[in-house]
């Protein structure tokens, strides 16, 4: 293998290479062949064994072994069972699943059929957010074309196996990506999580055994059957097999989708594939795992990316968002950004998440405004730990992670905010002072007129001055000044 080439397109094998609205192009690239092989030549137990041997783990965030999950659903006897594809993709900045559905919908349909055959289900549901209109359109086209060929529907390929798929639309609530909330939402109930157990494999959609898998997890399945479990399990690390797709964003040059074998280092992803930090700034942190994850630093750059290593480093794989930050990013503000998201997205069912996260957010806001003290830092940590231990679902259980990981990795920056009342990255307006540079000021009065609290005074054509005591640090003057005379320090 060429050492310089870091990416491996397994999940994205067809994205960009086929017309997703023409099933013949997908079939020319082996779509449905794995399904054909499984349903004509294999016993479900045999097929499940292959998925288990491949070592595939769920890409939706949890990393649960997929074969084991299928086995549970298979072993639970019932008159009806369901296969659900989780295409909710709610992490801010993530678009891996959308790209797969838009570029190669057949891989997901084929995998759902294979799963249905393995667990004994006759119906499949794809839960997709309504904000993905193009993915929805392409999925509908793909399903219709698969039906015409008899690759979905009754008696598929003359084997007697029948399976069909319907779409269900989500309204874009992050919590509805959590599998129990997702199932309730599909049933027409409020999208609120319930305690597990029972797991969906036991009692899911309408109380029937239901297998929920993520889009990317499913997209791996056809390859596992065409190339073999052994082939698949040779890619990756000891306990994380295959590849992972990341949506690389933030301060890197090459923003976009990246697919690398598990075990690739963060450095390779950010500096080689991602082309390094833009504008020649210095790398500061990388956030993985979205609102459930954490911020890693320079010292983690050589960590091989896999499920276990990322957790050990204080973050997690999550669904694959990867946001790169440079020296201009304030880590307290980053934690605040994620908490803002969590507070907005909490379903409100349980108190630790509903109230605790709000309090966490307020504390962070307090600190960013320069009003925090050392006791607040202890409060942040204690409260985070309580929320983690007591929240009902994964959303609340992981929501303090951005706070904890920044406390662990960027404690100095918190200290600077509470002790020195300074924001080293220069982001927290509340900790800044606005100044007018006398030499640059021409005395045009523009700033004085726009200041909402009349903090700026000066004669026409004379340098102006900002009264620190009155200034509320809104920044309106700075935007108005055409002479770059106003700076923050």
């Amino acid at each position, binding site marked *: 293998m*060429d050492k310089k080439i870091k990416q491996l397109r397994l999940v994205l094998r067809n994205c960009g290479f086929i017309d997703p609205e023409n099933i*013949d192009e997908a079939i020319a690239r082996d779509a449905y062949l794995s399904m054909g092989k499984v349903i004509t030549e294999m016993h479900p137990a045999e097929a499940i064994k292959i998925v288990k041997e491949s070592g595939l783990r769920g890409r939706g965030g949890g990393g649960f072994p997929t074969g084991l999950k299928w086995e549970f659903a298979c072993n639970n006897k019932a008159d009806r069972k369901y296969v659900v594809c989780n295409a909710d993709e709610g992490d801010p900045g993530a678009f891996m699943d959308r790209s797969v559905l838009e570029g190669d919908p057949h891989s997901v349909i084929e995998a759902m059929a294979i799963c249905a055959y393995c667990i004994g289900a006759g119906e499949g549901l794809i839960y997709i957010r309504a904000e993905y209109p193009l993915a929805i359109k392409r999925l509908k086209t793909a399903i219709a074309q698969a039906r015409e060929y008899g690759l979905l529907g009754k008696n598929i390929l003359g084997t007697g196996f029948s399976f069909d798929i319907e779409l269900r639309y989500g309204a874009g609530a992050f919590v509805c990506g959590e599998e129990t909330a997702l199932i309730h939402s599909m049933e027409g109930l409020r999208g609120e999580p319930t305690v597990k157990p029972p797991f969906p494999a036991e009692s899911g959609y309408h109380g029937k055994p239901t297998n929920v898998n993520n889009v990317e997890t499913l997209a791996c399945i056809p390859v596992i059957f065409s190339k073999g479990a052994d082939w698949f399990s040779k890619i990756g690390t000891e306990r994380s097999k295959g590849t992972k797709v990341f949506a690389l964003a933030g301060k890197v040059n090459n923003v976009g*989708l990246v697919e690398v074998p598990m075990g690739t280092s963060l450095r390779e992803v950010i500096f080689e594939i991602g082309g390094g930090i833009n504008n020649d700034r210095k790398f500061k942190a990388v956030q993985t795992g979205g609102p459930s994850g954490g911020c890693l630093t320079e010292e983690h750059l050589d960590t091989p990316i896999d499920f276990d290593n990322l957790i050990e480093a204080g973050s997690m794989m999550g669904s694959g968002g990867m946001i790169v930050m440079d020296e201009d990013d304030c880590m307290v503000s980053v934690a605040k950004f994620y908490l803002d998201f969590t507070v907005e997205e909490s379903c409100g069912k349980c108190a630790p998440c509903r109230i605790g996260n709000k309090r966490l957010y307020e504390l962070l806001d307090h600190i960013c405004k320069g009003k925090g003290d050392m006791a607040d830092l202890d409060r942040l940590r204690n409260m985070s730990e309580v929320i983690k231990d007591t929240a009902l679902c994964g959303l609340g259980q992981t929501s303090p992670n951005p706070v904890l990981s920044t406390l662990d990795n960027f404690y100095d920056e918190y200290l600077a905010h509470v002790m020195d009342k300074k924001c080293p990255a220069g982001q927290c307006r509340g900790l800044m002072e606005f100044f007018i540079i006398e030499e640059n000021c021409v005395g045009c009065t523009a700033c004085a007129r726009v200041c909402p609290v009349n903090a700026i005074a000066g004669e026409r054509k004379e340098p102006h001055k900002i009264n620190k005591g009155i200034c509320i640090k809104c920044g309106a003057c700075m935007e108005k000044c055409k002479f770059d005379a106003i700076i923050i320090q």
Partner: protein
Amino acid sequence: MKRLESYDDLRKLRNETREKISSYSDPKNAANRVIIRVGMGTSGIASGATQVLEFFREALRKRNIDAEVLMSGDMGYSYAEPTVQVTRPGTPPLVFGDVDTHRADEIIEKYIRQGEPVDGVIPVDYLTIEEI
């Protein structure tokens, strides 16, 4: 479309489609036509891929170049959308980034007609599952 009655039917269809489509899915067999594939995922479309696709269709027809203009999902190069994959007969495909109608015109006149280099080529930085 004809309903497929067996696994064999599917395999047959796969071989047929592969033959038919090989001209634009397999660079080694790229027959006599120029194949153009415009990345039409959400990122591509948001950056203007629809106009680029229409431009290629129009321009190639008007200029009498035998070409197939197709669409695909995004290849993942969000930083360089719209992206367009161009296969000249007998040459491996090249992916161009940041293709607006201006660059599309350059691609037709310089690269497609004369095989001359055009700016914006995105190097292949991945392996495929066939390669490992």
